[in-house]
């Protein structure tokens, strides 16, 4: 184990000692060839043949150098280092392109960061109500396509739950509101009577629905608000609902 670790560390370090490594490698192999050549000459070969034979016995010098490089460094790291250096030199050669690329990247990264910060604050952080960390969302099947509970089941949980302080239900629906001024399609959320008390939010005016409103029919008027305009206004007339059941 320690041998492999040691080998890996030394090989990684070898990437940064390239010049010295190359010089020593060349020197070592040349030394071998020189001795071989001497030995061939001593065996009676003329100098030109001795040199040829020494190199032939040795095999391709460059090939062995390459193999030595492969064992004494991590080629992938070495390639990466070379690629980065090439990229750096190319960028230095064309400063206009580099400036545009850097500016584009800066702007894009900045914009992304800003949008994410915004989304993070608005959507991803917990709901802005007291004790938001104590809220639990129950679904029949978790995930993007999970199903909610049907009404009787929800009621049963609401009545029987002993481990939860308060239970409330909600579901997103499109509703059509009929008022004297016309028909309005609104995106709405249907909630059970426990919704607002459990979330501990107070209405701007009037009152929210509460547990006693959990019955068929229209609650007492005077508390419904329209969010169509930026300003909040009370509806002068009690609207009629359709599409919700």
């Amino acid at each position: 184990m320690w041998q492999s670790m040691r080998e890996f560390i030394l090989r990684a370090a070898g990437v940064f000692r390239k010049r010295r490594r190359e010089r020593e490698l060349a020197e070592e192999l040349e030394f071998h060839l020189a001795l071989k050549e001497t030995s061939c000459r001593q065996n009676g070969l003329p100098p030109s043949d001795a040199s040829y034979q020494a190199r032939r016995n040795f095999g391709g010098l460059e090939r062995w150098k390459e193999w030595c490089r492969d064992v004494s460094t991590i080629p992938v790291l070495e390639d990466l280092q070379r690629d980065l250096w090439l990229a750096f030199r190319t960028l230095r050669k064309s400063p206009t392109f580099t400036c545009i690329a850097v500016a584009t990247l800066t702007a894009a990264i900045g914009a992304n960061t800003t949008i994410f910060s915004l989304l993070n604050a608005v959507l991803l952080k917990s709901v802005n109500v007291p004790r938001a960390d104590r809220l639990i969302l129950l679904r029949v099947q978790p995930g993007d396509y999970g199903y909610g509970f049907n009404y009787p089941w929800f009621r049963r949980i609401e009545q029987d739950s002993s481990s939860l302080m308060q239970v409330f239900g909600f579901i997103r629906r499109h509703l059509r509101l009929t008022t004297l001024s016309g028909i309005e399609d609104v995106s709405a959320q249907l909630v059970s009577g426990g919704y607002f008390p459990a979330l501990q939010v107070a209405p701007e005016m009037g009152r929210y629905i509460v547990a006693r409103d959990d019955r068929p029919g229209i609650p007492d008027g005077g508390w419904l608000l329209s969010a169509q305009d930026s300003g909040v206004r009370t509806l002068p007339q009690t609207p009629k609902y359709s599409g919700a059941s």
Partner: protein
Amino acid sequence: MLPEELSSEGDAPHKVYFPYSFMGRKALDKSRSGDLIPGTLDLLILKALESGPLHGYAVAEWIHGRSHDVLQIDEGALYPALHRLELRGLLSAEWGASENNRRAKFYRLTGPGRKHLLSERERWTRLAAAVGFVLAGT
């Protein structure tokens, strides 16, 4: 000595190949890898250095002389093997003056290298004996 001369007695010499492609760029040529049991070259190198430090050329000469020309080693293949054994801590290397007063890299067996040599030699002896038993059977 040329390869042709080595094989002049009729039997082809056994090639000892460099068995690694560890984290390398090139995949090892499969047709070459199975010729002799991997690790044999390591064993031969470690054995050559058992009696004292040697440079690469002397290691090649030692193996060449001791094998009575039966094992033929690509001399260049020694160096990747030597470097790898050095990286694994089985050998240590230092530059010194050779017999002809040139600067040469000398390899020395380390403590772990000696241990490795013993275990590899044992493994090799067991293996050779096992093959011998198989071949002796009728």
